[in-house]
């Protein structure tokens, strides 16, 4: 799971997207291994002037919530299966995909939190939706596939939308 050197693949601004994929046990203690790799990618993109540091923080926040949801909710009450993490660095965007084999969920059924009431839970999907430019959930062959996209040229106001 090690990444590349300073002239790594995410420096390649043009051309085919670079893809990374790895599978982890669906347990929280493994999440930071994937997060460290994603942070490394975001850091390179930041230094290349393609993704501001605060946008990188948002991508990492969304990934963390997605991984948590897979482990805590999708595998709730059943054997912990794997969590597949896929990254794609394209010229104009970064895609992060989190895939689990747990129970399906309906994102539309998750209510928007009332922030004024200072909720203590139910914030994960809200963070994902607000920190990423595109979010798509699909159930594919018995797996939950959450695809999150951050556009490099997106206005910084996604979080304030």
């Amino acid at each position: 799971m090690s990444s590349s050197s300073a002239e790594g693949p995410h420096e390649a601004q043009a051309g085919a997207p670079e893809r990374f994929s790895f599978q982890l046990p669906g347990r929280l203690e493994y999440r930071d291994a994937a997060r460290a790799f994603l942070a490394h990618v975001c850091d390179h993109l930041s230094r290349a002037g393609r993704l501001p540091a605060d946008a990188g923080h948002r991508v990492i926040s969304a990934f963390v919530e997605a991984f948590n949801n897979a482990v805590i909710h999708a595998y709730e009450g059943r054997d912990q299966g794997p969590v597949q993490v896929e990254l794609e660095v394209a010229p104009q965007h970064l895609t992060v995909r989190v895939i689990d084999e747990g129970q399906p969920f309906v994102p539309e059924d998750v209510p928007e939190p009332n922030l004024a009431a200072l909720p203590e839970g139910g914030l994960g999907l809200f963070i994902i939706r607000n920190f990423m430019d595109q979010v798509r959930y699909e159930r594919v062959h018995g797996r939950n596939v959450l695809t999150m996209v951050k556009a490099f040229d997106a206005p910084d106001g996604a979080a304030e939308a």
Partner: protein
Amino acid sequence: MLDYDRQERGDVTIFSLKGNLDALTAPSLKKEIESLLASRKINVVFDLAGLELIDSSGVGAIVSLFKRVRTLQGDVKIARLQGQPAEIFKLLRLDKAFDIFDTIDRAVERFRS
């Protein structure tokens, strides 16, 4: 991984958090919070200079403490918010709910004023 240092300055308790406050580590902080409240400490400063990551579970732990000490006429103040936690605070409008300070000293002083 979460490390925290707990210091008392008069009637103010300062928690300096280092590492991740998340679904994995929030339960340990909640235990610490229970012991805090059991000893009637209701004025708390969270120093977040060393906090690398907070997730929604970590937010839940801080907000839970905030609500409880408020009912006891205490308060929670935040010092040295930065990085990823600052993004989360902004999105969830916690920067409006909490008093946030650049230094620990200023946060502690606010309890005196």
